[in-house]
């Protein structure tokens, strides 16, 4: 317990130093926000299209799809804020030898390597845009979600982020075994966009593939389905197991990556 408290405190310091560091470069900070606003527009564009056509897709009304898009935007805010830069910089951090000094620190190395930086600029537009989109579409639907649904929604968002973390960490860890992973890392990262529309637009087989084999659909689809009461018990259990299971597997993989590093190294 005290270890968890310690890591939380250290994380507070990580966040503080990251913010100070980012404010050192004001121009970058502002441009980061502006660029992300443009990306936010492309995400909202999808919801806009669906509204303009006014059709129901896979039983979802335009407002329901908008709620989905809002959730996806919130997830993007969380992922870019907490993990994206960290995972992206693993390959060069390892090559530069930063890992050496992390290994001697009395905190979890996985925590240190994958959560060192907190990004503040890019999540700002996404948090604001995401909250507004969710709130507006929620009230337009007149959604009367019960307490349980809301708890499930929030819980599945957090699990979705955990899943995204594990899923995107895998290609980054391959850097310990082979040097050229950049292409793979970026291609896997681009899978994120498969959540820009509900998975109902795809056929049955693609849905199954994206839920069970490469569980990208779980990230944004499951929280929203929980809110609409359309998440079957089977999917709900998978929504709990997949993130936790994958996290355990990835942590194991992280340990053997470190082992590999320490055995070869130098």
């Amino acid at each position, binding site marked *: 317990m005290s270890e968890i408290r310690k890591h939380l405190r250290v994380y507070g310091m990580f966040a503080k130093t990251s913010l100070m560091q980012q404010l050192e470069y004001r*121009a*970058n900070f502002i*441009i*980061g926000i*502006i*660029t992300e606003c*443009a*990306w936010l*527009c*492309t995400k909202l*564009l*999808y919801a*806009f*299209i*669906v509204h*303009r*056509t006014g*059709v*129901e*897709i*896979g039983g979802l009304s335009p407002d329901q799809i908008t709620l989905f898009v809002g959730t996806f935007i919130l997830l993007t805010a969380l992922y870019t804020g907490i993990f994206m830069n960290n995972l992206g910089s693993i390959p060069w951090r390892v090559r530069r030898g930063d890992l050496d000094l992390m290994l001697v620190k009395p905190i979890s190395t996985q925590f240190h390597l994958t959560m060192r930086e907190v990004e503040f600029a890019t999540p700002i537009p996404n948090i604001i845009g995401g909250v507004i989109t969710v709130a507006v579409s929620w009230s337009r639907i007149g959604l009367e979600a019960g307490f349980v649904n809301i708890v499930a929604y929030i819980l599945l968002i957090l699990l979705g982020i955990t899943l995204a973390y594990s899923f995107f960490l895998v290609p980054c860890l391959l850097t310990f075994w082979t040097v*050229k992973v*950049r*292409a793979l890392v*970026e*291609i896997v990262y*681009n*899978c994120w*966009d*498969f959540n*820009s*529309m509900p998975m*109902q*637009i*795809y*056929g049955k087989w*693609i849905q199954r593939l994206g839920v069970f084999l490469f569980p990208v659909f779980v990230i944004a689809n499951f929280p929203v389905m929980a809110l609409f009461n359309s998440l079957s018990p089977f999917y709900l259990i998978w929504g709990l197991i997949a993130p936790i299971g994958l996290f355990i597997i990835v942590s194991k993989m992280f340990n053997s990556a470190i082992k590999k590093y320490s055995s070869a190294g130098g």
Partner: protein
Amino acid sequence: MKAIKKYYTVYTLAMQSVMQYKTDFFISLVSGGFTIIIQFFLWTAIYGASENPQLFGFEYAQMVTYVVMAGIMGKYISTGFEYEIMEDIMEGNLNRFFVQPIGHLPYRLFGFLGVKTMENAMVILISAALLGIIGITAGIQYSVMNIVLVLLIAPFSLLINCMLFYCLSVTNFWLTWGWGVFNGARVVTTILSGGIFPLDVFGETALAVLKFLPFQYIVYFPLSVVVGRVTGMDVIYGVLIQIFWIIAFYLLSRVLWKIGMKRYIAARG
């Protein structure tokens, strides 16, 4: 004649060096492919659910062709020299263009087009295959005439985009805003040029306003030709406007470059 030969050499040298960019090219192809997949399924679902066979003035076959081609066009017109130019300006690499008898714009532009020729040959092959597959699965008939036309128009689109980003890179003389701004600009121009959805989705007013901006001549116009929404003399008018924008941006870039260069020399001596 000598000048032409000089730039031709830059062009062919770049063509040979294309291999060094192959990873980036491959990545952008795959991620572009993802967007195309999402778009294809989205519109198939929308048209499947809609009672109206026409949405935003597009039939299903036209819409699918448009969004798929938009993904491909995005790759076809993509630039990439802006980072090099930014570095040239910020790191002081421009000095060599004072001593060597070669202009900066032609040097960067021809070098870039050399890389681009190889890549776009690839892009055209891939898009032919992709359109073939989609045509068969979705039962779409293409007009050969329109496809030939777009192959002729597309290089102008590429040039507009190049000149646009060249002007943007030159602003680094005044503002050191780093590469972030290029990403932002790329997203905005992609939306405004109809590179994600046809501009008709934004409504009549937006369409009327966008007519006076250069963006729609980058993607929306050539793709309107492909799907047969722009025909006859309108194609010629469109190309003339494209040429107008290329010249306008070229002149703008010259002016910006001259002013910026004065500043650069004053600052560095």
